[in-house]
Every structure is written in C-alpha cells, then in structure tokens.
C-alpha cells in the first residue's frame, strides 16, 4: 500500500504507455491504432509532469502576495508539455487523414488486407 501511495503517478503513466503500445502492436484496426497513439501521448505527458512535481509545492503563479518561491513545482516540464499537447492533436489529425485516404483507396481498415502494412 505504501508502494502504491508513493508511486501512484508513475504507475498511471506507465500503465497508459503500455496499454497504448499494446494497442498499437496487437490490434488490427487502423482507427484503434491511432487511439493507442493518443494514449501513449497522454502517458508520456503525465510522466514528465510527475517527474517535475515537488511534494508540498504549489503552482508557479504569483497570483497573490505571500507565496514563497521556494514552495513551487518545477515550471519547465509544464512549459514543455503545454506545447506538446497541442502539437499532439494536430499530428493525430494528420494520422487520421492518412487513415481516411487509405480507406478510400483500399475499402477496408484491416491492416492484414492492406498490402505493405501486414506483419
């Protein structure tokens, strides 16, 4: 129980990454593969933010006087993840447009029936 308490966010991040990778490798439907990619994306963002967390800290915003700068969490992973999320949705839309074009070409979403994607 103490292990679970200490590592909750790491377990969440790695759980999402591994479930996403399993979907990418084992599923045969292309839209589902893209859903798995979005899970991997969320998991990596969660891992970065949880590495930057400091126990007892608060958000790095000087919104009212009296907030000590020594009790703040790390702002750099937040700044990186902030842009990565918006980039992620644009790349996801690009992948889905490729999926739509593949469906118009081959008439199926099953990667076993598309020549060149089978493994």
């Amino acid at each position, binding site marked *: 129980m103490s292990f679970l308490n200490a590592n909750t966010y790491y377990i969440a991040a790695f759980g999402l990454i591994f479930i996403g990778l399993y979907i990418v490798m084992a599923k045969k439907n292309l839209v589902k593969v893209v859903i798995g990619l979005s899970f991997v994306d969320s998991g990596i963002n969660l891992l970065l933010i949880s590495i930057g967390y400091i126990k007892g800290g608060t958000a790095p915003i*000087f919104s009212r006087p009296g907030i000590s*700068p020594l009790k703040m969490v790390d702002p750099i992973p937040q700044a990186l993840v902030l842009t990565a*999320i918006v980039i992620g949705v644009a790349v996801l839309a690009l992948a889905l447009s490729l999926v739509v074009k593949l469906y118009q070409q081959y008439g199926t979403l099953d990667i076993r029936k598309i020549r060149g994607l089978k*493994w």
Partner: protein
Amino acid sequence: MRKIIALIFLAILLWGITKPVSRIPFGTNKIKVAEHYITKDITETGAANVVTSVVVLYRGFDTLGEVTILFIAAIGLASILYLPRKKVSDEVLEESSLILRTGCRFLFPLILLFGAYIFVHGHLTPGGGFQGGAIIASGFALIFLSCRERVVSTVKLGVVESLAGMTFVAVGLIGLATGGYFLLSFLPKGTLNMLFSAGIIPVIYVAIGFKVGSELAGIIGNLMERTQ
C-alpha cells in the same frame, strides 16, 4: 501470435525501464535551472505566471519551432486531403434541430469571448495562447457541427494565421534591432498582476492564440469538407 509477441516485447521493455525510473524519487526537488527561473522571474520578466515566461521568453525559440510544426501539420493535412472543387456529396444529411441550432448560435460568441479572455490574461492566470486557441477552435467545431451552411472561408483563416505568425517574428526582430538579441522584452515591465505588464509577453501570446485557433479550425474544416 501477434498478441504473444507484443506481450513479450512489453515485458522486456518493463523489465528494462523499472531500473532507471526507480532512481528518480517522486516528489523531491531535482533541477537547478528551475530555481533560477522561479526566483528571478519577477525582476527579469514581470509576469506573474512563471510557465508563461518560460514558454514565451526564456524558451521563445522553442515555441517558434513548435508553432512551425503545427503549421507544417496543417499544410500536410490540407495537401493530403486535396480535392478539386466540385459538388461531391450525393448523400442526404439530417438537418440539425431548432434547439441545437439556436443554442449554438447563442453560445458561439460566448466561447470566442472566453477564449480571448484566456489568452489575454495568459501572464496572470493559468492559460495562454495555446489553450485559448484550442477553445476558439472548439467554438468553430461547434459551428461546423450544427450550422453547415455557415461555412468559414479558408482564405480568411489563412490571412489571420499568416498575420499572427508575422507578428510573432516581427516582435522578435524588433528586439533584435533595439537590444541585441532575438525576443528581447523591449516594452516596460509595469507593475506585477496588472493587465498591461510583463513587456512583450501579452503581445506574443495574443499572436499565438490567433495562430493556433485559426490553424486548428482549418484542420477541422478540412477534415469535414475536403473528404466526401
């Protein structure tokens, strides 16, 4: 067979990854760079939100690159989905109901106003250009879903996007001309926690908000209309 191979691969990956991650304890202070940003932020930039000053000033080149990636993704999607301009939809679509139509017309300006509030106040409260742009694009997605006849012209979106990108680069170049390096904060810093403060941060974040909003709205419009 694929599932077994995938599980074996994931087990090897898990075995390899637990060792380095167990060296990183959760919840302790680790990085020295952040201390400089947090303690010197008010005197150097004048923004109340440290994340904003890291995104716009300390790592402004990084943000310029990310905006460029977003632009390239939008261009790639538009060129993949390119169709010659002709009427292709032979399928009859269901009209949206009166309640949805009226509600969307009422909510669309409010969502735009809220997105503008988020990116104008980016240096004071949580939020900023990326979040505000995403909220504005959500408002356009609502219009695309409910009122199909009110099409947003892609030419206007392109003009807004280009002007916003040029504003970003131009503000950076003015800093280069006056002070000696790109993205120098040449405007006065003002007092903390006021709307007109923090130098060039609000200008650049408003530009990023317009750029992200028009790009994501263009992506959704292309996905919905360029394919049959």
